[in-house]
Structures are given as C-alpha cells and as structure tokens.
C-alpha cells in the first residue's frame, strides 16, 4: 500500500552500497590455496630470483630450493653433498667435478627440450653463469667469490677495459651508451661476445671438458671453496631462458630451474609457492644404487659417511620429499612468532628481539624443543672514520680508539638494552668459527681492568697535547640502534669523559653517508658469506700492498674494499691477508719466500705490542704457535695432509691479522648476534648450522605433522618487553 516512489532514497543508498559491494567482489583477489606441506616465514619480499644478482637471505632460501649448484649443503654440518656434480676430486689447486647426466632443466613442470632433445645441466652452463658474474655490466654483488679462480681478475679487468672502450667508441659515433649486451648493434655484440669467450678460454681456470666434466683451477689456497660451490652466486643458469626473456626470465611463466623444487606461484609481498620437481635426479633407484655403492666401502671419509647416513635416514627425495612449500613474505618477527605458535607456519628464522631475552632464558633453564639457539656469526659494530683530523696522528688516534672500545660495558649493554642473550664481541671473528681460535683480541678480561686501561690511554692521549674530541654516532632510524647508541654515549661520558652526539638518518641517506665518509662513528653490521675468518678480515683491506717500501704508491689512488668505510689503509695488514694468508701454499713450499715472509712480519713496528706479546688463553702467543705449526707442514705427507697443515698455518696468519686489526681498531666490535631459529621437533632433515641454510630437499615430517592451526603449547606465556634506555 505504501507507494514505491517513496523509497527512492533507499534505492539510491542501496544502489551505492551495491556498487561498492560489486567493486569489492570484482577486485577481490584472495589467493585461497590449500595448505602447503611446509610453510616458513621468509622475511622481506625477494628482490629477484636470479642467482647472479641476489644478495639476501630471503632470496637465497628460495634459490637454494629451485636451483642447484655443483654441491648442496648437508643440513646439519654444511658439508658439501652431491648436487649437480655427482662426485669431485681435488689435485692441489685443481678441482675436477663430474656432472651427472640427469640433472635436467625443467620448465613448467616438464623437462626442457632444445631441438627436440631433453636438456640437462652441463659444464657450459656453469661457464655461462660464472662469466655472467664477471662482466662489467652485470651488477652482480658476489662476483668477488670467483676471484680465487685463476685468471678471473684479469678477465674482469680486461673485459672492463674492453667495455669502456666500446662505450667511448660509441660516444664518438654519437650512439647512446649501452647498459647491457642487448643494447649493442648485432656486429658490435658479436665482437664483444667473441672477445669474451676467447679471453675466458685463454685465461680463466674454469674449463669444461666435454659436457659432463668441469675443471676449476684456483689461484690460491681456498679451503672453503667447496662451501662456495654450495652458494647461490655459483649456481648454473639456463642460457636459453635468460637470452629469451632478459630480466623477466625469473617470472613463473618463463623460469627454467634445475633444483628439487619448481616455482609454481609468485604473489608479490604475499607468498611464493614451490612445487616438487617430478624430474629431480634423486630417485628411489638412484638412492638404492648409491647406497649399494657406499655399502661396500668400510672406511669411508667423513664426507661420504655423512652422505650415506643422510640417505639412509631420510630416504630418496622422489619418495619422501615434501610436495609443496610456501615461503611467506612477512617482515615482522613478532607476527612470524605468533603465526608459528598458532600453528600457521612451520618455521621462522628468529625470535623477535623484544621477547628473545625472556624466551632464551626460559629455554636455558628448561629447553623448549622448538628453539634452536647458538651464537650467530653475524656481528654488530661501529665503523670509525679514520679520515677525521683527530686520527691523523697514528699513535694518538689508536689510543683514543682503544679507549673508546674498552670503555663500553658490553655485558650490561646486552643485559639491559638489547636483551637477546647476545655475545659480547672483543674480536671480529665469532667464537663459532671452526678450526680457528676465536678469542677476545683486546681488553683485560674484566670490566674494571678495561676501564682502568681506558682511562690510562686517555691520560696518555691528553698529555701528548690532544684535546678530547666530540664525536657523532650515526645510525639508521630504528629504536633498537638508538637505544644502543644512547647507552654507549652514556658509557663514554661516564667512564672516560668523552662527549658523543647521536645522529639518525633515514636508511638510504645513512647508506650514502657511510659510503661517502660523512660520519664520525657509524653503526654497522656484517653477515658472513662463508665460514672462514677471511670473510671478516678482507673487509678492511685495500689494494695498497707496497707503500711501506715504495712511497710513490701513495700518489696513486687507493682502492678500498667496498665495505672498508673506515678507509683503513694498513699495508702490512693488506699483505698479510691478501698475500701471505691467501697464497700460503706458495709461501710454504718455497723456503726463501717463507723466510722472507716471517722476516717481514717480525719487522713490523706493531709486532711486539700487537702480535708477539699478546698472550692467548693457552698461555702461548700466535707467533709462537705459528712457528710450531710450520714444521708440521714440512713433515706432512700426501696432498690432503699437506693441505690440512697449510690450512692450520693459514688460520694462524689470519689470527695474527685479526690481532693487528684489533690493535688498530678501525672498527669497534660490540656484540655477536644470537641465532634463534624455531622449528618443531617433528621436523627431520634440518639442523642448526651457522649459515642458517636449510635446503628443503632434506625436510621430512616424522610421524606426521600437526593439523593446521594447532597451538604449540611448549611455548611459555611471555610478556613483550620494550627496550629501555639506561
């Protein structure tokens, strides 16, 4: 009875609401997908999946699963296990890798065929990938890892010259400068490619011998080389895909992979879904054959014993590997932990700092089976800008820096400010470094002693006529860094009367300031690329190896290591790290060179104070231990034994280098991070290791997995703590 026209306004409102609802339904793109067999929180969205260009852990975790290098990490010990290479041998500095014929390139779930033939990973793929790292326009940030290979440095230099020449030539012809090969005219491109191929063949020690054998000749002794072959910058890359699609070859519709998993779905800022590669080489048959092989041998070397144990324990990937994986792009550690506790994800990388202290303490008292904690090899430290006027006088500058380093109560900092059971750092190399005596390299051992020494140093500093400076501490805008800086500022004021000002900058600006030397002290961090002290120590080198003997060297520009923001230029240090330690085999095998080296080292001015007098915990000095190790090298017989002995000597040399570094203190170490990984006890094929690398290939669920959304009760109730200022 009520007329319809009356409701016109209501119709208008309903129409408005309906159109909003229509927009919603039309644009809603939720990704309802089934539960993956294994899901982990991967952190920030990966920048790229191209192994040549990636640099971060989120990218690496994905790459390790969809690609495969010559070798793969053993999940617990990080020992190299067979990957694309089924076996390898080492003769002196030459490694020979035997590639397997069934490591297929896979596209869209099917084996890639080229000209009708199935395409497996061959030695030329490695040459292509590694060359790609070394060319000047590549933008690869890990190409330094290949520098140990014979001829790579020359290749890089000559291709760089060639490229620059090309740019200049094009400029004179009024053509636009090229950004990549594809920008060149076709004849120019052929010329460049031919040049590079020829140069590589002539100079570089990476030689394919047929399709299935790859020979790699190193320039110097690199004991961790086989670790590096596990690492994604050295993964092979499918030439056909890269050339066909350029930057876009990594998209799910284009990508070609060779790993145990394929890239199924990539939703930006949400998740990446990986799917089991049905054509992966680790089949039941393969495993059975391999185990049979190994069964016959009784006295297996460690590596093979580990491999056998792994295969027996975990079975073949074909039969027992997990079918789908999800990597979630969630940046917040808090949310990650919540998701884990609620049973929505199966692994997170770290416990958020605010609750880490409480949880780790609880874990120490009564172990929580989900938490796997250890001292991490990553380090938190301050870069010191050595170009400041106060550091012009070497002696005074060093006194000041040593005082600054000593006047920080690190245990208290950790207890009250950062609160995640970190380890105080009195050296750069972490205590977890295997085979290396990682000890405090400065400090008296007690806080009281440290503060006393610091004050003595300041007095000496002042009595030489120097005024106490005011310093600025630079950090990027983050509450945690601010709290630490404020603590240290207070420590310096209270303990040695030095004023410091805090300065925070936005991320990009901060990176810029560090790079261009616009800082006094800058907060810094370093995550190692492989498990060897060299990854820390080479950061502070420059290319000046001769200026102590040849002063004219200083008139030429000095190239610092890209992380050497302090601009530390110690010729002796450089020689020790870049020459003696890296080429230790050369120096040991030739008596004259050996003597010259030892002479050189003992002639250095800092020798007595920094090296010879510094007594270690075992009451010896590194210098003494070095001299004790040398005859052991001479006595060793057989290549393996000699290499082992040489490695020990090399590590002593590096200890001496670290001692020198920590004498000069171009950087002030603060603490080593704690690794606190979390995964459920029902997960097998995973272990705590210092690279935090867990290839999904090995993951197995023991006795079944918890249903989705089951809360893990093993976690105690905890309270989030805010970071207090001292």
């Amino acid at each position: 009875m009520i007329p319809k026209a009356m409701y016109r306004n209501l119709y208008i409102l309903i129409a408005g609401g309906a159109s909003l609802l229509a927009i919603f339904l039309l644009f809603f793109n939720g990704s309802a997908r089934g539960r993956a067999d294994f899901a982990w929180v991967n952190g920030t969205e990966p920048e790229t999946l191209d192994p040549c260009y990636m640099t971060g852990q989120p990218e690496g975790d994905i790459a390790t699963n969809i690609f495969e290098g010559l070798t793969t990490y053993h999940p617990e010990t990080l020992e190299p296990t067979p990957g694309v290479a089924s076996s390898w041998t080492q003769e002196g500095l030459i490694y020979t890798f035997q590639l397997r014929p069934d490591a297929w390139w896979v596209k869209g779930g099917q084996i890639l065929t080229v000209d009708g033939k199935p395409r497996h990973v061959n030695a030329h793929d490695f040459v292509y990938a590694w060359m790609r790292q070394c060319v000047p326009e590549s933008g690869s940030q890990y190409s330094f890892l290949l520098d140990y290979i014979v001829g790579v440095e020359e290749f890089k230099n000559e291709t760089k010259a060639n490229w620059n020449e090309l740019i200049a030539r094009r400029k004179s012809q009024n053509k636009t400068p090229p950004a990549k090969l594809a920008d060149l005219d076709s004849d120019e491109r052929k010329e460049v490619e031919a040049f590079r191929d020829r140069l590589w063949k002539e100079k570089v020690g990476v030689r394919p011998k047929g399709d299935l054998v790859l020979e790699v000749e190193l320039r110097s002794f690199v004991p961790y080389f086989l670790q590096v072959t596990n690492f994604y910058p050295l993964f092979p890359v499918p030439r056909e895909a890269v050339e066909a699609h350029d930057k876009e070859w990594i998209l799910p519709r284009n990508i070609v992979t060779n790993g145990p998993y394929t890239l199924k779905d990539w939703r930006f800022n949400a998740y990446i879904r990986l799917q089991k590669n049905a054509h992966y080489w680790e089949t039941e048959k393969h495993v059975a054959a391999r185990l049979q092989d190994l069964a016959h041998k009784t006295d297996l070397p460690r590596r093979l014993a580990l491999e056998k144990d792994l295969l027996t324990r975990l079975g073949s990937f074909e039969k027992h590997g997990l079918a789908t994986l999800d990597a979630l792009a969630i940046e917040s550690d808090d949310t990650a932990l919540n998701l884990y506790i609620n049973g929505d994800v199966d692994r997170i990388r770290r416990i958020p700092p605010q609750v880490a202290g409480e949880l780790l303490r609880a874990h120490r008292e009564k172990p929580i089976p989900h938490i796997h904690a250890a001292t991490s090899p990553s380090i938190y430290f301050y870069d010191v800008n050595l170009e400041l006027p106060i550091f012009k006088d070497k002696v005074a500058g060093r006194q000041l820096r040593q005082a600054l380093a000593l006047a920080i109560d690190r245990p208290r900092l950790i207890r009250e400010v950062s609160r995640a059971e970190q380890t105080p750092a009195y050296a750069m190399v972490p205590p977890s470094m295997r085979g290396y005596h990682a000890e405090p390299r400065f400090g008296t051992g007690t806080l009281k002693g440290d503060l006393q020494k610091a004050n003595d140093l300041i007095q000496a500093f002042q009595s030489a006529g120097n005024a106490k400076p005011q310093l600025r501490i630079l950090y990027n805008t983050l509450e945690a860094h601010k709290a630490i800086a404020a603590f240290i500022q207070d420590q310096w004021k209270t303990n040695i009367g030095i004023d410091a000002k805090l300065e925070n900058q936005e991320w990009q600006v901060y990176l810029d300031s560090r790079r261009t030397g616009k800082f006094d002290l800058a907060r810094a961090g370093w995550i190692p690329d492989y498990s060897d002290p060299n990854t820390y120590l080479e950061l502070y080198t420059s290319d000046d190896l001769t200026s102590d003997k040849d002063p004219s060297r200083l008139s030429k520009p000095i190239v610092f290591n890209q992380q050497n923001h302090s601009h530390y230029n110690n010729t002796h240090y450089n020689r020790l790290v870049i020459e003696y330690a890296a080429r230790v085999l050369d120096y040991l095998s030739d008596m004259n060179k050996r003597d010259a080296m030892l002479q050189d080292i003992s002639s250095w001015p800092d020798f007595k104070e920094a090296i010879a007098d510094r007594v270690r915990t075992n009451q010896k000095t590194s210098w003494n231990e070095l001299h004790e190790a040398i005859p052991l090298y001479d006595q060793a017989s057989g290549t393996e034994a000699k290499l082992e002995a040489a490695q020990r000597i090399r590590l002593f040399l590096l200890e001496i280098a670290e001692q020198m570094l920590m004498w000069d203190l171009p950087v002030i170490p603060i603490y080593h991070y704690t690794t606190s990984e979390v995964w459920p006890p029902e997960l097998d094929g995973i272990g705590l290791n210092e690279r935090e690398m867990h290839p999904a290939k090995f993951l197995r669920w023991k006795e079944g997995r918890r249903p989705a959304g089951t809360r893990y009760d093993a976690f105690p109730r905890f309270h989030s703590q805010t970071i207090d200022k001292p």
Partner: protein
Amino acid sequence: MLVMVLKRLGGVILTVWMVATLSFFLIRLAPGNPFANELHSLSPEEDAARRREYHLDESYSVQYGYWLWDLCRGDLGDSMKYRGKTVNALIAQTFPTSLALGSMAMLMALVVGMTTGVLAALRQNSPTDYALMAVAVFGISLPSFVFAMLGIVLFVFGARLFPLAGWESYRHVILPAMALSLPFAAKISRLTRVGMLEVLGEDFIRTAYAKGLAERHVVIKHALRGAMLPVISYLGPAFALILTGSLVIEKIFFLPGLGTIFVQAATNRDYNVVLGTVVVFSTLLCFFNFLVDLSYSLLDPRVKGSTGE
C-alpha cells in the same frame, strides 16, 4: 551535462599529470640511490650500467620525456629494486587488494554510519542517542591501528575467529576492513545525525506532516535526501583518507596491497614504482571525487548542471 562531465574528466587528467610531474622531480631530488644495499655495493661500472638501463644518467628533462612517453602508452616502467618485475605487473597484483579493502571498508562505514546516525537523530537526546554519539567520538579520536590491535587481541588471539595475516579468503577481509572503516563509520554517523536533525527542523518537513504523512514516510522520502547530501560530500575526502589509512592496515595485517608497495618503494627510492603508485592513487582519487560530485549534482536538484536545470 555532457559538457560538464567532459570538462571535469579533463580536470582529472590535468590534476593527475601535475601530481605525477611534481612527484617525478621530488623523488629524484631526494638523497639516496635506488641501487644501494647495506652489505654489498656495486662497482662503479655496474652502477653506471644500471643507471644507464633506467636512463638515470640523462638529464631530468630527458628522463621525464621517456617516462611521459611510456606513460601515454600505458607502460609504467620497470621496478629498480625488484628486477624483472614491471610496475604494471606489481600494480596489477596489488592494486585489486587495496581497492577491495577500501571499498569494503567504505561500504561498512556507510552501512553502520548511516543507520546509527538516523537512529540517533530520530531518538534525539535519548540514552540511545548519547550512547551512539559517545561511541562515535571514540571512533573518530582513536587511530585505526589501535582498533586493529584491539581487534587482533579480541578476535584473533581471543576468540580465534579470524586469521592473523594474509589475504586468502573472505575471512581475511573482515577484520582489516572493520578496523579501517571504524573512524569513517563514526564520522558518517555524526554527519548523518546532524544532517538528519537539520533537515527535520526544516519547514517542508512541517508541511509534509501537515499533509497527513506518516513519520516513516516523512523520514525516508522527505528527510533522508537532505541528510544524505553532507555524507556524500564527505565521501570524497573520506576516500582519500581510506587510501592513506589502508597503508597502516596493510602493514598490520600483512595484506599484499598497493599501500605497502608505495611505502617500500619510497624507502628504496624505486622511482618507477613510486611514480606508478602515485599515478594510480591520484587517478583513483580524482576520479572518485568526480563521481561524488556527479552524484551530488544528480541528487540535489538545486545544483547547477543537474537534471533540475
């Protein structure tokens, strides 16, 4: 009418162009390098090659020319940080999420806001009125992330009704949309109430009652139109605020939306992504404002350019 529409659309295009151009130069003037990374840096040649690839070695006007030409062909360029991803692809994946979230939030705000506003106006000065308006004041004053956190504590950890993060099913939409919509629902509630009360005090309402019309008839047919108009005017700025508010909500609930990309890109100095999102956001905003103006002129016959003239 058609002329007015075309003129307004032209205005939209002009505004978007101006905003985008301004952003173009601003982001390039900000210090920082799109290719910077803390742990590993590029060598000078590699940096040069990258810059060449994105035309960053040319003068600003040349870069602008490239960018504008590409824009006219619908190509927003490539991301500098996420190599291999085009800005178009990134936006295509994330924009629908933000739009769906925003439209659902706006729908909730309108439904809740208008019904409570009308209710409060009709029961003016009653306990219901006071209660609703008190809640509305809270809604306007508290920031949306407070509601989001509260919602998470109550409904995700407490009642375990909704998921914590992600954008998968409709269940993932409810809590974020509610948190986003609450301040707007409150504002719309107050606007509706005030608008309704004002209209109910007008003479023509008295005339309507004098004609013997029932209350329901008078409210819905005579009063509601006048009460709706202030709300519709508010929708323009509300939409802008919903867009900016969605940045926070997306961060809290880890929704893969355009807002998150925008913030990340600004921090990373990913020029093309920043500009792409600026273009998308401003176009959306201008267009939505245009629609609001259009509907306002359609609904109020006294406005020039409507059917009543």
